[in-house]
């Protein structure tokens, strides 16, 4: 199998969400002595770009994204040790800490945004639901987050998004992180009112927003 075929297989494994094919293609890449970074950039990431575009156009949905992310992780289990062995580094897009705010137990919107961000190459740390302001900030410090993404589904939990921003200000940490907000009842006006750095109406918009913020960092 030549290099182009292996890279194509890696991309196909991602688009098809096929863990076995991803593992097999990653092994084939190393056997053929491909640069493991090329396997990531020109194979796996290309597949992620394709699935991301299909998601954006409504051709595929969350299940396909999750399966693509799973195949990506499977291939990386083979490629990552070789990348480290060769003392190379995968370009970092940034780290996003994502969670649902205090009092809100709804997770699906957050999960969709987190998955889309992963397909765009961001490191995503998902802290789950019902997180207090201080817990979110401490976790952001621990994982050295670039962006804090706050989700809520209920009108009555929206004020908890504001509380995170106010607590960051009180702790003189506001300029350390970009803070973005989203969720069913959240609007751009609300994001503006509470001093967030942005708002995404959809998962795609949220991912574009994070990219824009990181590009201008």
């Amino acid at each position: 199998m030549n290099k182009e075929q292996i890279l194509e297989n890696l991309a196909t494994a991602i688009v098809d969400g096929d863990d076995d094919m991803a593992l097999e293609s990653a092994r084939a890449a190393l056997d053929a002595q491909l640069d493991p970074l090329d396997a990531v950039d020109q194979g796996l990431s290309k597949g992620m770009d394709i699935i991301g575009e299909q998601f954006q156009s409504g051709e595929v949905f969350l299940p396909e994204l999750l399966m693509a992310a799973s195949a990506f992780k499977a291939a990386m289990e083979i490629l990552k040790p070789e990348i480290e062995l060769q003392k190379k580094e995968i370009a970092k897009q940034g780290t996003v800490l994502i969670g649902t705010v205090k009092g809100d137990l709804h997770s699906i919107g957050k999960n969709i945004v987190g998955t889309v961000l992963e397909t765009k190459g961001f490191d995503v740390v998902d802290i789950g639901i019902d997180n207090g302001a201080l817990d979110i900030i401490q976790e952001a410090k621990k994982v050295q987050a670039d962006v804090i993404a706050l989700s809520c589904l209920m009108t009555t939990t929206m004020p908890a998004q504001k509380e995170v921003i106010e607590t960051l200000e009180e702790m003189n940490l506001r300029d350390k992180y970009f803070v973005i907000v989203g969720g069913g009842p959240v609007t751009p006006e609300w994001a503006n009112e509470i001093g967030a750095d942005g708002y995404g109406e959809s998962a795609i918009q949220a991912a574009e927003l994070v990219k824009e913020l990181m590009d201008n960092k």
Partner: protein
Amino acid sequence: MPNLLDFMERATTGPILSEDDFNMKHLIPNVRKIVREFEIHYTPENPVPSDDAFADRLFEAAIEFIVRTGVYCDDTNRVIQFEREEIVQAVANLPGGATFGEGRECRFFSPRKPEDGNQPWYHVGTGIVASSEDIALAQVEGYGSIPRANSISIPALKSIKGMDVIGGSPLEIHAAVSAVQAGRKALTRSGRPGLPILNLISTATTALGTIAGTHPNFGLRPSDGWLIDFLAEMKVNFETLNRLAFIQITGGNIGSTALPILGGYAGGAPGTALVMMAYYLLGITLFQGSYHLTGPVHFRHGCSTTRDILWVFSVVGRAASRNTRYPAIALGYAAAGPATQMYFYEAAAANLCFVPSGYAGVQTVHPAKAVIDDGVSPLEAQFCVEVAHAVTGMSAERANALVNQLLEKYEKEIDKTPAGKRYQECYDPKTGKPGDDYLRLFNEMKAELAGMGIPFA
């Protein structure tokens, strides 16, 4: 038939696994397999299908889906499992409706069948749109003044005495109590104190808020209705089950509710229809509810008036009403806001799906995706009631043609819809009457829709 304590036992002894494994190894593969096995195909050209065999297949598919998948309990990380026979038995044992309201507002909420000539239950108002404390009273009074209204939803309060509500705090307790007191007071002012409130307790984010607001000092009655929701998708937690335990013990009407996400774990329209049908059955079996409130939401557009969502509404309504006697209220979200031409098109399309497909009840289509504070007024509720009344008895085939015409008018605009007006911008809060411009638009839109073939009374 198993009761809540039996299900709690399953929630503490069922198969243990992480939420990710439940999603990736059970939920998603089962949706995909069952959609394929039962041949659940989306037909975009028919947003209001009339295929009874398909509807019955969807119903059977949903039973099989629950048996294979179960419901995940977030707090125990275990799967609550179900047997086919207990689902079938629970459906067979349904009482076939429930009584709501008091005095001259006391009514029996009956199931309907597809293309039924009986009027649907008119449930008016919104519980998700947040309202200012002063506006909430006027809105509810306006809902109470709609003669055909059978029940109402009261708004959620986002603040109390100028302070933002914090979930699980004393502020939530106060806001939950204030909201129900205001709702009852407004209904009394509208001259209909017996009208039931069916979205209790809109302001409560926790079981604690629900229990506090339900205290008999604050005006609620067992003839009202308490909504208890599933988490997306196929999940519950102790907050949910605590509310359920409390309302079961105190004898209130339980309204099972779920708003599945099209594009989420269930995937596209076929999977969403499957999961939405499954929630009906879980409402009957696990929650043992008196009624159901349902409506899918599009993951990207945040509304439920897109072509694929309307199809989901229609096929599930047909499947559920043909195979169960569990009265369900259809809840839709319009992309456009109040006092816009597009809102009327969307709301008309939604009701043309709901009523001929056999939903027992219809709720006011929520304007502007329910995200604008004070972004709702009684005239939207009035419009939805009038459309639903007009299309009662209409064939699905005729409704399908009309919905296709309406979709042509708005579906390309779904991403650039007008936010519309807030209550105080299109109503006079002092008199509780709509402004002249809004009333004119209302009448013009009714005339246009009548010209298309909606037979308004």
